[in-house]
């Protein structure tokens, strides 16, 4: 039985959007932690650790997120863990974000001039002190604009979770479409909802970048 597209459907989509936001936050926080370790390992770690980090980044960036999602979705049960779709999808999204953030932040750490290391070493700082007081504060400044930009990427990429049945904004869109048979209107609303999540992040990222470039013309 078809029904008219109405306010109720809009509210349903909003509840789906809540899950999109939650999944994005989980992916960003979890991915951020992994990304931090990856970035440090990739740029400053001993050689085997560097290769490991580089391999992790390469594999994640070289395979489709869709494949990663399906592997985790089916992989958990094969290895004997009975987990919900949310856990499977979160794990995949965390590892995905971790690799990209690790790569972004690696670039930021490496953008700090070599002389900063030398100067702080000359001042007698230990390695962790150098990292904590000299290198990371400068790297973080460079890192903020692309990180905010990547948050928008995370939000967009969570939409793939709908394909393994996780009821996020897009999946809710599919369900509402099935009930109302108004695919164009529903998917346009879904697109605009994603847009209203991502566009502010994009604009924010753009302004942060401009501010950064004003502060440092190089």
């Amino acid at each position, binding site marked *: 039985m078809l029904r008219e597209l109405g306010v109720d459907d809009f509210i349903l989509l909003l509840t789906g959007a809540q899950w999109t936001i939650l999944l994005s936050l989980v992916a960003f926080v979890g991915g951020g932690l992994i990304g931090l370790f990856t970035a440090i390992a990739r740029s400053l770690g001993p050689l085997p650790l560097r290769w490991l980090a580089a391999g992790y980044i390469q594999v994640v960036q*070289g395979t*489709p997120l869709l494949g990663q999602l399906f592997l985790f979705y089916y*992989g958990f049960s094969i290895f*004997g863990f009975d987990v919900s779709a949310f856990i499977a999808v979160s794990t995949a999204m965390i590892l995905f974000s971790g690799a990209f953030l690790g790569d972004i932040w690696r670039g930021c750490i490496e953008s700090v001039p070599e002389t900063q290391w030398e100067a702080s070493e000359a001042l007698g700082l230990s390695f962790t002190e150098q990292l904590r007081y000299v290198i990371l504060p400068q790297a973080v400044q460079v890192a903020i604009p692309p990180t905010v930009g990547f948050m928008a990427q995370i939000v967009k990429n969570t939409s793939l979770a709908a394909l393994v049945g996780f009821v996020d904004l897009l999946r809710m869109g599919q369900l509402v479409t099935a009930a109302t048979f108004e695919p164009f209107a529903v*998917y346009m609303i879904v697109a605009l909802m994603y847009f209203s999540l991502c566009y502010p992040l994009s604009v924010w990222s753009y302004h942060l970048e401009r501010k950064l470039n004003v502060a440092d013309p190089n």
Partner: protein
Amino acid sequence: MDYSFNFRPVFNNFDMLLEGALLTLELSAITMMLGLMVGTLGAAIKIWGPRPARLLVGAYVNFIRNTPLLVQLFIVYFGLPSIGIRLAAPDAAVLGLTIYLGAYATEIIRAGIQAIPKSQIEAGLCLGLSYLQVFRYVIIVPALQVVYPALVSQFILLMLGTSLVSFISAKELFHTALFLDSRTFLPFEIYLVVSLMYLAMSLGFRALFAVIGHFIFTPTRG
């Protein structure tokens, strides 16, 4: 863990997977060329076009860059028929992916063009080159050279993104994977092999683009 992996059925159907991979490469190549054209046109309009056209291109770029590709594909394939535009799955896939890549390419190429010093364009005009010649020799080729690495990354993201068109029933590698999954019930093995095939393709594309870049761009001095 009491699961024993069984890769045999996957490799028994490897010719199907290779066929799917070939379709993915074909789809990627077509979309890359179309996307590059849309991107060049979009960048030219965004820089030199009249104000309404600039705003229109700006809205297009912002809308596409801030919504998921999957939603865009759903709009093209499932949405457009309800306003009277019915596309076959492969056409919808090419159209959706081109619209998507075109928006990113517009931004990348625009940045490249704006990195070309104005004096170079003036110098080209002074030498008696026509506007078209200036665009061809002084602007677009050096601009593409500047942003080539960013463009290549975007191309590879696109190649990986083609996997999504399997969900609007267009045939490519991931579509084959879904089919084999439904027939063999060996999802883990299939998606593992297929993911590795994508990895091989993205490494292959990277190497190929490095070679292409070597041939079409003159090495920069200084």
